[in-house]
């Protein structure tokens, strides 16, 4: 066996002198949302470079909002143009898919990011330092916390306005992630949105030690997992000889029939496929925070600045599940019977693990982190349905969940004491007495998390469980509702704490936010209730978006 000779001919063919270089065909209009966001990010960097410091905040904020809104409009335009359904196809030489799920998720990510920008830009919560309003981010992240350099920076009124372009870069990566149609794009998109997030995590104004620790953990584990992902990609490439989704799917479906027998050692080798698939899945499961790859979630959620946590929890999950869906539905449907049992297991331990460990949490952000893990489990149940309904239910769930999450973390930013945000649960005692409205809003979010009817959480949960049940995963549904019951316990515990306990004398106060955060929270509440009461329109939307292009 000596394949080398055959390869050589290929080499030589490729090395022949081309007549002309064929320019890649790029449908710029169809990938415009991504381009807009990246363009704005670059402009943002330029703003940092050239605009005077005092104008940067306004400019960056405006730029981000406009860019995200424009990108969202572009998504709407594409969807209206039929790209979500009939005209769905692959753009940019097959690197990116423009289809229903992609557009739906991109739209969701953009809206979530837009709301997140509001919370990023909030400058009224922390007491003003030296007469200047400050946001949640360090004045100068590179400076040692509490050191002279930092004090000087604070005094000078520095602000890390870079967060906006960083955020935009992350958003850009997230937009590509669920649309990526080959494994290379997938990997690059993953890194494009992960690296900015690592940085954002480290930028907290208060409790910087924790913030940096979160960044370090996130970074190391993220890089570690992306290495696994990459290795998985390598193996899949070895299996199929290509990294495009369609190509791999074809090989998986047809087996190694028309493959050169000389390549039998690698190509079509099931071991490569299975190991590669498993490692690639692991990379994505890490991003969605599924057990046992969830360990980063609580620590990072806790340490990161709360607006970042909210953004991360909402948008990353949407993007990562989008990518997971595409990987499983487009690349690996032929080996459904291989990955389904494993994913069953992952879904079950994720649901139960998240719910159970959350019971004893004492920090609100950690609690929400574990809650997000449990929710990842619920969404996985929908993913496992492997039906069109499964896709649309997951899309709907993601949309519903992301707004609840964002809103919940936005409320967390409001509850403050002398040391910044009071995330210790015990400090939340009696919040309902002091600020009934804020507590009530938070209770709405918690109830939505718990999946109480008339909230979006219930509609979402119903949708995914319904899809799972229809695909025959009845027992998964039963375990799902049981873990919902366990999960309900800790959501309710928080409500008890807020409403049925006497406020402590030295308890935290609720800061009065600017219209930015107020808007963010209000959007969260409205979406939660509308999706709970009249979800049909959005279900239709998700239903129409329920087909992947191949």
């Amino acid at each position, binding site marked *: 066996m000596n394949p080398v000779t055959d390869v050589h001919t290929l080499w030589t063919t490729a090395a022949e002198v081309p007549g002309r270089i064929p320019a890649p065909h790029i449908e710029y209009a169809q990938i415009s949302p991504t381009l807009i966001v990246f363009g704005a990010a670059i402009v943002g960097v330029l703003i940092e470079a050239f605009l005077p410091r005092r104008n940067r905040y306004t400019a960056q904020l405006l730029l981000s909002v406009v860019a995200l809104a424009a990108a969202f409009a572009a998504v709407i335009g594409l969807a209206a143009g039929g790209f979500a359904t009939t005209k769905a196809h692959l753009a940019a030489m097959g690197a990116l898919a423009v289809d229903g799920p992609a557009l739906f998720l991109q739209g969701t990510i953009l809206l979530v990011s837009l709301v997140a920008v509001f919370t990023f830009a909030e400058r009224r919560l922390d007491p003003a330092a030296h007469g200047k309003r400050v946001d949640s981010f360090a004045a100068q992240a590179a400076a040692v916390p509490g050191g002279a350099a930092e004090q000087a920076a604070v005094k000078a009124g520095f602000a890390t306005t870079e967060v906006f372009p960083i955020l935009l870069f992350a958003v850009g990566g997230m937009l590509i992630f669920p649309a990526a149609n080959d494994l290379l794009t997938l990997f690059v998109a993953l890194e494009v949105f992960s690296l900015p997030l690592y940085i954002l995590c480290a930028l907290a104004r208060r409790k910087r030690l924790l913030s940096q*620790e979160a960044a370090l953990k996130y970074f*190391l584990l993220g*890089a570690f997992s992306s*290495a696994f992902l990459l290795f998985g990609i*390598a193996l899949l490439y*070895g299996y199929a*000889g290509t990294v495009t989704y369609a190509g791999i799917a074809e090989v998986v479906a047809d087996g190694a029939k028309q493959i050169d027998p000389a390549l039998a050692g*690698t190509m079509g080798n099931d071991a490569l496929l299975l190991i590669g698939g498993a490692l690639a899945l692991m990379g994505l499961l890490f991003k969605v925070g599924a057990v046992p790859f969830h360990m980063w979630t609580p620590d990072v959620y806790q340490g990161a600045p709360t607006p970042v946590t909210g953004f991360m929890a909402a948008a990353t999950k949407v993007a990562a599940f989008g990518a997971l869906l595409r990987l499983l539905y487009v690349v690996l449907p032929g080996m459904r019977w291989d990955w389904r049992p494993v994913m069953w297991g992952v879904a079950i331990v994720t649901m139960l693990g998240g719910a159970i460990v959350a019971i004893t949490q004492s920090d609100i952000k950690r609690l929400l982190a574990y809650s997000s893990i449990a929710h990842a489990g619920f969404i996985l149940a929908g993913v496992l349905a492997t039906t069109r309904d499964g896709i649309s239910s997951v899309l709907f769930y993601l949309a519903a969940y992301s707004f609840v999450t964002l809103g919940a973390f936005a409320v967390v930013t409001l509850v403050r004491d002398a040391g910044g945000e009071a995330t210790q649960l015990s400090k939340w005692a009696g919040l309902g007495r002091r600020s009934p409205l804020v507590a009530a809003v938070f209770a709405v979010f918690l109830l939505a998390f718990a999946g109480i009817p008339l909230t979006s959480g219930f509609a979402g949960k119903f949708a995914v469980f319904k899809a799972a049940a229809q695909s025959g995963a009845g027992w998964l549904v039963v375990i799902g509702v049981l873990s919902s019951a366990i999960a309900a316990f800790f959501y309710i515990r928080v409500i008890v704490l807020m409403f049925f306990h006497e406020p402590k004398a030295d308890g935290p106060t609720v800061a009065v936010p600017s219209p930015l955060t107020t808007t963010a929270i209000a959007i969260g509440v409205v979406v939660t209730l509308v999706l709970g009461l009249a979800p049909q329109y959005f279900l239709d939307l998700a239903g129409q978006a329920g087909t992947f292009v191949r």
Partner: protein
Amino acid sequence: MNPVHYLYLAALLFTIGAAGVLIRRNAIVVFMCIELMLNACNLAFVTFSRLHGNLDGQIIAFFTMVVAAAEVVVGLAIIVTIFRTRHTASVDDASLMKL
């Protein structure tokens, strides 16, 4: 030489990298181990590229290098700020948040 041996080497390197991540305390070393894992992937890509007789794998290897470089930028920045704050680069010291 049988190209499959390159794959074994890649797997070995990957494992060494992973083991390094688990074993070493210094953040920089841990990070380098991750880079080692990425490079192991590169080796695998290139090998498969050879085996399949197409260029995809090799191109991916370039992408990987770029990504790794970007990772270095971000990673080092984070590690350095932490070092400046804590005067240690041990990952085990960064364990304030737990349970």
